[in-house]
């Protein structure tokens, strides 16, 4: 579809993903020791891999965030972002199935505590769709001043709405959370 290849949409998708990844990486780097525990809590990796993976994830996210903005690397970065988000979603699904919903998602490390839920999985799928949009090479339409305004303003607005909804998700659900040891 031609409208999905519109340069404005593609750019908005790239900028929003870059912001989300950048924010996630910085939040993780600021409490890296805790993030090691968060990765361990998922109980998916063998013990000796937990620390290397926890140290590796934030830089990878940062590199992807930059890669999404640099024109030469946009498509591969978008594909890699989608892959990373799918891996995260799978890790969450496994733990939701195990009933370990009391652990912190760790998406934004300790600056935003989010418990695992299907909502988070759905959020990741929305981000994957955004990454798919970002992977499309921008079409040949001329970019006008209105497009630039749309790109910048929409990115800012989407980022704020995203942060708002994330924070809403970090509240405990009604009726209290059942405690699991």
């Amino acid at each position, binding site marked *: 579809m031609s409208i999905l290849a519109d340069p404005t*949409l593609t750019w908005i998708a790239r900028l929003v993903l870059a912001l989300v990844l950048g924010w996630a990486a910085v939040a993780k780097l600021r409490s890296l020791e805790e993030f090691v525990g968060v990765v361990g809590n998922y109980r998916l990796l063998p013990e000796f891999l937990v620390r290397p993976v926890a140290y590796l994830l934030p830089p990878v996210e940062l590199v992807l965030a930059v890669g999404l903005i640099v024109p030469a690397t946009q498509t591969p970065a978008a594909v890699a972002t989608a892959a990373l988000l799918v891996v995260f979603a799978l890790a969450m699904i496994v733990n939701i199935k195990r009933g370990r919903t009391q652990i912190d998602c760790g998406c934004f490390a300790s600056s935003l505590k989010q418990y695992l839920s299907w909502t988070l999985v759905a959020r990741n799928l929305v981000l994957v769709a955004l990454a798919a949009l970002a992977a499309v090479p921008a079409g040949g339409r001329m970019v006008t001043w209105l497009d630039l305004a749309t790109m910048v303003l929409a990115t800012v607005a989407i980022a704020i709405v995203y942060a*708002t909804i994330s924070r809403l998700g970090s509240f405990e659900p009604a009726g209290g959370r059942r405690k699991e040891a």
Partner: protein
Amino acid sequence: MLEALAISQAVLLLLVIGLAVAVFGLVRQIGVLHERVAPMGALMTDRAVSVGDAAPSFDLKDLNGQDVHIGGKRPRSQMMLFVSPSCPVCKKLLPLAKSVARGERGGLDLILVGDGDIAEQKAFVEKQNLQDVPYVVAAEVGMTYQVGKLPYAILVDDEGFIRAKGLVNSREHLESLLEAKETGYGSIQDYLDAHSTGRAPARPNGAAEGEHAGAGTQ
């Protein structure tokens, strides 16, 4: 230009949907809030123990089978630290707690309190090198002291009274509990209240809820 307008319009509509979802979520939270503040009938909502009270005592055995006594008259103060293997902040805090306990003048007995599967707790002790610290697994302690969030610390003095307690996330939080014991102010808020109004503390160990840690709640 027309295409640019169309795209701008489409993005705008999507944003409106996003905002609508956010507003719906907020409205739901208002409902939840109403539910939480509503009268709860027979449910006791007040705290079981507060700062200044005698600490409810327990006779327990730690994971090594050694006797551990909580509360009552003792030669040294005690600090109970409520932890869990599934709490990342706890792992960060454990070495800090050990060093704070070692550095305290007059000595301080650190007791770790866990809850849940024994095998899991033993693996946790093994991994975090906690063999030299008494570690008790007893849900009733946390229930009696009404510990809701981890890691939570409770300081009991040598006379068996609770001197400070609160959610602890950092070395500063731990030290603030010990500070509370030395100054007689249950929390930094009590101290500031007493000093900003120029009056002596009405209740030196009064109803402090360890709110200093609340600000750092993650």
